């Protein structure tokens, strides 16, 4: 019983971190209705950024948030201006292949500049564990989970209560009507894309103490992120958190009871099952996946 409890507990924590990594993708999908296939590479360069700040400036990754998050916001602005915006009024294939091209470009430039070696940062808190009754957890995992929950709540508050949040929701509901009511839709798209990229930067800093970084690290994580975004209901922020936690628990239990290698397979199968039986995800609106919104 304790084993199961421990597995569910650590699965939940790691799932929170997966969710944090997916929130940017969810936000961008929810508002712009595009899937950014370079999302994993955004994470990769942000992780390298956090790693470099530790390696060369001696800053711990949590402090590097101050620099990485604004830098990723700017990077998001540039990518939106150069690649996403020109592709928005074209068939959705264009944005799929253009972001895919960007992903290949970034991955291989990283390979050329930084080599394929795995890089990581030394443990920050001395590798200690916290105990909660019968369960224990690494402090880095707890911090990551806390940041994920805080981000979800913060984003939800922003969307509900602020003017920008209302403008974003209006754009999602009806872009044309929003435009007529004076919402600057193109700027909303820009801000959303950049904010989504900044969130990737935040999650990279939180993940750096837990995972190694290498040029193709993005592919591993982006597949998980896609699964989470779909599972949570494309575009739903709380859904992403719930989806992330589900994935974390499924991975943790199946790795322990069946085989570590099959852990990944189970969540891809879970993903396919969700797609087949509940295409709108756990918390998504019905019919979303079948409407062909982006066509």
């Amino acid at each position, binding site marked *: 019983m304790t084993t199961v409890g421990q597995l569910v507990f650590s699965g939940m924590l790691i799932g929170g971190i997966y969710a944090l990594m997916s929130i940017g993708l969810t936000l961008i999908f929810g508002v712009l209705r595009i899937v950014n296939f370079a999302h994993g590479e955004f994470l990769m360069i942000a992780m390298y950024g956090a790693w470099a700040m530790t390696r060369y400036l001696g800053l711990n990754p949590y402090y590097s948030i101050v620099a990485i998050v604004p830098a990723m916001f700017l990077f998001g602005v540039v990518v939106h201006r150069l690649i996403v915006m020109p592709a928005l009024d074209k068939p959705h294939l264009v944005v799929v292949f*253009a972001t895919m091209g960007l992903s290949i470009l970034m991955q291989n430039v990283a390979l050329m500049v930084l080599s394929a070696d795995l890089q990581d940062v030394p443990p920050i808190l001395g590798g200690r564990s916290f105990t909660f009754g019968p369960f224990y957890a690494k402090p880095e995992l707890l911090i990551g989970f806390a940041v994920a929950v805080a981000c979800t709540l913060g984003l939800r508050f922003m969307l509900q209560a602020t003017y920008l949040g209302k403008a974003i929701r209006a754009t999602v509901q009806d872009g044309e009507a929003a435009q007529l009511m004076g919402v600057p839709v193109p700027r909303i798209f820009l801000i959303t894309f950049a904010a989504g990229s900044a969130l990737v930067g935040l999650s990279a800093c939180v993940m750096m103490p837990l995972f190694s970084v290498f040029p193709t690290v993005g592919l591993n994580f982006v597949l998980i992120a896609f699964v989470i975004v779909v599972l949570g209901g494309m575009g739903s922020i709380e859904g992403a958190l719930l989806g992330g936690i589900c994935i974390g628990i499924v991975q943790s239990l199946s790795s322990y009871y069946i*085989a570590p290698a099959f852990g990944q397979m189970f969540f*891809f199968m879970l993903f396919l099952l969700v*797609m087949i039986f509940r295409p709108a995800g756990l918390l998504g609106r019905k019919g979303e996946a079948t409407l062909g919104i982006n066509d």
Partner: protein
Amino acid sequence: MDAAPPRAKQRSGRWRLLPERGTVSLFELVLLAVCVALVAAPLPQYLQDVVIQTFLWAGLALAWNIAGGFAGLISFGHAAFFGIGAYTSSILAANYGLTPWIGLWIGGVLSTAFGAVLTLVCARLRGPFFILSTLAAAEVVRIAALNWATLTGGAEGFSILPIASIANMVFESKTTYAALMLGYFLLIYAITKTVEGSRYGYYLFAARDDEEAASAAGVNPLLARTGAMSLSAFLAGIGGSLFAQYFLFLDPTHVISPELSFQFALLPALGGLGTAIGPVLGSFVITPLSEMLRSYFGGAAAGLHLAIYGGVLVVVMLYIPSGIAGALQRLAEHRRKGTP
């Protein structure tokens, strides 16, 4: 579901660069002659290798295009079909002594079954949802192959005995392989042209461009789409067997990787989606280019050729979404306007 790629306008009796639906153009005949010459020419080994890969990828890109271009079923999971084909014929040959000449059809049939089931269960999904489902399905196949080590050899890989004989489908001369791959490519090109000009092809285009209108006009979109994906999967599976017989080594990380699936989609996208000649041009330009960049810069700058590839893809997608075929078409029309 997507906007139709621009096609040659019907102007009979005028000089044309690119072939039109259901006809054969001078351009295709010249290309065919060049291909035959490339097989027959006494090229150095490494160039023959480039020729072989170019033909194989032309065939694979054409196979993808039947689903992705004609039916609008953008798949990022074709590596699964390729891998199923490659492993089936190789395992049948190694464990049961069945010649790959028969095994490749069995691999193709298994790929077809997988493709048909995938299309049917994902029948309601559109756009990015369908794409991601194909990606996930291919990952399931990859992880299964990686862990079913008793059958596939797992991560250590699966070697095919390099004993040259016709029954083993292993040859000493690269010329034979080049001829084999050319045959594969031409077969798929002929199938593509036949589908393109047939009533079935028009069903596919109709279902792709406007599903509701197509069903109102009596086309069964689900049936049309499933057929296209099955045919595409079948041909990709056969390509996988041929690949196995040429490289003589398989491992899941290379044969069923997401990167391989992307390659399937990128060649037609660069060449010109939904046309017969587009995927061919894509492979004929990109495969030699990436092989040469790899051999020139290989050690010094690992990844350079892929970085260029990625950059080119972004630019082509944003500025010439109809690909190389579309650009050539525009060039031809421009020149024709120029001459009185």
